[in-house]
């Protein structure tokens, strides 16, 4: 909002005003965008209800390909969810200053991505009305879930990940919320009072005394410390949904590290994809600069190389093992009916990111934005290729078959993107999209201050 009084006296004051000023009073573009998202959501909702009423047969999944686009989306969104906590937690522990302006948005993204991913295990259930059979609680069936099943591991990993990320994100917000509360004090009008009260409640009565800071910083440190192994574990568990099966093309020991790398890869890509339009829309060009994209570009490149290595390693292992079934499966993956998706995956995830070797491209926001789009597509296809092509050509040649998604699956996929963006846009207008406190910290430490592009870095 334009008039936060009194006007900034210091650089700190300016930070508070810029970031808070980016909040609320959405313009017509924002409103239209929201309406579109809600419309898409509605259509996807209809598709889901239709599927529940008529049966899973309305989706394209079939015998032998019993998992398709739904699980692809699940893994895709879980992957997206990984950059947030990674940037916040790991980079926090590594004390890398450039994270400070993007971690808030990244964490929000994490939470919304998990919220999206969490829908798909439900959507793909044959009898979703019995989803609670998976929950571990004392019940009249006297039956507990099968804790040996990787799906139950998923249940625990995802719900833990969601809870911890939420708490981590929220505790990071507390001082900022207090800042907003106190900014409201200077204002008049009922809206300002309401906001003061609302943010006051959310900030849990933070007042920035040194003892509060001491406990707070300690708690935040521990959360960061435990969130780090959590991030790694979650996508390892997701990868075990496949690796623990005996299906050729799934049954592989490198899946856990391979999937984690892939998750971070796709997560970073999504951060870039979202932050570019978002820094422009909220007028925060000074806060997210070439400097940040440069660093994210490096991370993108690193993870892309790891993922590419994993692809090659997989093929080498299939060949080296001398297992005809395994080898047939991999050969067919590249040459068979799903060669197209395979080619897309290779191009988008391995070749295109190589451009990030050039500093010029890394620091060219348009270029890195386009690259990030390709990576998003490529990573979706990676999951599709792994899941579908492996199932289509298994041990029993007589039972080989193909899979093609239907309008139901595609609608729900579109809906998942709408769902995710809906929450993100809501967030962008209601909560400080950049951590006020941490920007101030990095300024105090002299690591970085708004507007700095660090050309020399």
């Amino acid at each position, binding site marked *: 909002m334009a008039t936060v009084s009194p006007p*900034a*006296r*210091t*650089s*700190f*004051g300016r930070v*508070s005003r810029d970031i808070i000023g980016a909040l609320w009073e959405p313009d017509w573009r924002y409103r239209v965008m929201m309406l579109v998202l809600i419309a898409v959501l509605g259509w996807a909702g209809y598709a889901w209800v239709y599927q529940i009423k008529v049966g899973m047969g309305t989706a394209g999944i079939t015998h032998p390909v019993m998992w398709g686009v739904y699980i692809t989306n699940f893994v895709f969104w879980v992957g997206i969810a990984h950059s947030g906590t990674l940037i916040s937690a790991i980079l926090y522990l590594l004390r890398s200053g450039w994270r400070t302006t993007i971690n808030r948005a990244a964490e929000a993204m994490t939470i919304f991505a998990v919220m999206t991913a969490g829908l798909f295990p439900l959507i793909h259930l044959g009898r979703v009305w019995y989803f609670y059979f998976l929950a*571990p609680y004392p019940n009249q069936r*006297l*039956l*507990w879930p*099968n*804790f*040996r099943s990787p799906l139950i*591991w998923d249940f*625990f990993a995802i719900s*833990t990940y969601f*809870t*911890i990320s939420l*708490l981590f994100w929220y*505790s990071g917000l507390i*001082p900022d919320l*207090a*800042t907003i*509360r*106190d*900014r409201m*004090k*200077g204002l008049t009008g009922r809206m300002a009072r309401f906001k003061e009260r609302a943010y006051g*409640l959310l900030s*849990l*009565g*933070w*007042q*920035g*005394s*040194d*003892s*509060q*800071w*001491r*406990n*707070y*910083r*300690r*708690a935040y440190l*521990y*959360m960061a410390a*435990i*969130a780090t192994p*959590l991030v790694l*574990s979650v996508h390892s*568990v997701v990868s*075990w949904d496949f690796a623990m099966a005996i299906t050729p093309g799934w049954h592989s020991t490198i899946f856990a590290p391979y999937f984690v790398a892939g998750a971070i890869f796709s997560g970073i890509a999504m951060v870039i994809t979202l932050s570019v339009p978002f820094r422009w829309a909220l007028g925060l060009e000074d806060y997210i600069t070439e400097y940040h994209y440069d660093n994210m570009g490096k991370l993108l490149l690193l993870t892309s190389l790891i993922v590419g290595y994993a692809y090659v390693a997989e093929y080498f292992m299939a060949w080296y093992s001398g297992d005809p079934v395994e080898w047939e499966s991999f050969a067919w993956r590249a040459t068979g009916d799903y060669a197209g998706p395979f080619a897309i995956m290779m191009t988008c995830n391995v070749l295109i990111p190589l451009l990030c070797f050039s500093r010029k491209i890394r620091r060219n926001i348009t270029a890195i934005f386009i690259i990030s789009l390709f990576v998003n597509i490529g990573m979706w296809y990676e999951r599709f290729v792994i899941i579908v092509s492996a199932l289509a050509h298994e041990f029993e040649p007589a039972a080989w078959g193909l899979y093609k998604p239907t309008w139901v699956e595609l609608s729900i996929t579109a809906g998942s993107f709408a769902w995710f963006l809906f929450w993100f846009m809501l967030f962008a207008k209601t909560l400080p999209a950049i951590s*006020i*406190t941490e920007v*101030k*910290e990095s300024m*105090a*430490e002299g690591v970085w201050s708004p507007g700095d592009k660090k050309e020399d870095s």
Partner: protein
Amino acid sequence: MAARGVVTATFDDIHTVVGAVRSIRQEGCEDLTVFGPIMEHELEEAIGKPPSPVRRYALVGGLIGCISGFALTTWSSFYYPLVVGGKPLASTPAYVVIAFEMTILFAGISALIGMLIHNRMPTVKLHPEHKPDYTDDRFAVRVACEPKRAARVQEVLRSYGPREVRID
């Protein structure tokens, strides 16, 4: 009662605050509170209060989570014994994953709870001394001491060029 005097000085820059705090403590005044939009390790050291008890919460929470993870999985497989895939009822390797996730979950939650408890949060009524600026761009050093020493404290604080100094 006017047994103690309270001096409050506000600053713009955290580094000056560090200096100020150090000298105040050399003066032998330990009863001081610092407010500010951010906090730094340096400053925490200068204030020199004992480390936060939050870490114990995290540890205990983690242990409880780990134990209950193994307990739940193992107990439930014997409570309603069903053989799957020719595996033993206590398939411990498989249960490690559950135990791990629960360790993380409990540790995280209890760390947060610990923080809230020791920060007396959540609350709606703020410290009477709290000023809106403290969460924006002002640092405040609040020293409580005998009235007779208040002048000296004030002097020391002034030497760091504060925005303002208040005595009450």
